[in-house]
């Protein structure tokens, strides 16, 4: 095959992104999205997902409590929307900007949850391939690579016209 593996995600035009995922990758995205959805629906205060709902007023616990009450449900709905959109488009060969943004949101929140639960640090670590944590690290590393590609593709599209905005007359 050579040195250059085909990119999984690539901008191919204004607002257009080609996607090349193998079947197992599509299944992984779909099942991880469903798993996280289940946990979020159960409770946003579950320790494994606390990282997805951070403090806003770090110097004022009372205000922060009020902020969380005001915004928690909206943030949850947005997170669920990204997971659902990704699961629905996991088999797509092409995505628009919104579609790829949903993937980015999904991959990012999955990394946050998995990474927090693995207690990852900024430094790379040697993982015993036979340890219980090894599969988690493998998934985490995979998502890291995928996210990097998504960011790279979307960066190229930062100047693209917003499809939601009608052209001015």
């Amino acid at each position, binding site marked *: 095959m050579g040195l250059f593996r085909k990119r999984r995600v690539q901008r191919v035009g204004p607002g257009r992104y080609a996607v090349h995922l193998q079947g197992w990758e599509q299944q992984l995205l779909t099942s991880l999205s469903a798993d996280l959805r289940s946990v979020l629906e159960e409770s946003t205060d579950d320790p494994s997902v606390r990282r997805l709902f951070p403090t*806003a007023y770090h110097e004022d616990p009372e205000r922060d409590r009020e902020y969380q009450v005001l915004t928690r449900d909206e943030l949850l709905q947005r997170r669920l929307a990204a997971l659902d959109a990704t699961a629905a488009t996991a088999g797509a060969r092409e995505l628009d900007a919104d579609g790829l943004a949903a993937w980015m949101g999904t991959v990012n929140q999955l990394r946050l949850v998995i990474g927090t639960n693995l207690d990852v640090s900024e430094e790379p670590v040697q993982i015993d391939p036979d340890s219980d944590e090894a599969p988690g690290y493998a998934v985490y590393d995979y998502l890291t690579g995928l996210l990097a590609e998504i960011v790279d593709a979307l960066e190229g599209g930062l100047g693209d016209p917003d499809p939601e905005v009608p052209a001015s007359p």
Partner: protein
Amino acid sequence: MTGVSPVEVERPVGGTEAEEDVPWVVLVWNDPINLMSYVAYVFQKLFGYSKEKAEQLMLQVHHEGRSAVAHGTRSECELHVFRLHEHGLWATMQHDR
């Protein structure tokens, strides 16, 4: 870019009217998980910063532990914090001083 209309944080929680005029600042804190390229991209996307400015802020987060990424009224900053949280960044807000 998500296709979902922005949340309307019309009235910040608590506080007096005079307090709403006090400038607030949004901080983004370093964390061991978010990719540097991702953080810089989010700054460009959410604030319209140039690539250079976004990278400068991202590096400040990375090296100094945190960076002030936006200023504004309490309402404006709550919205910025909400969007940053939606993107998985660890953002908080405080009085600008």
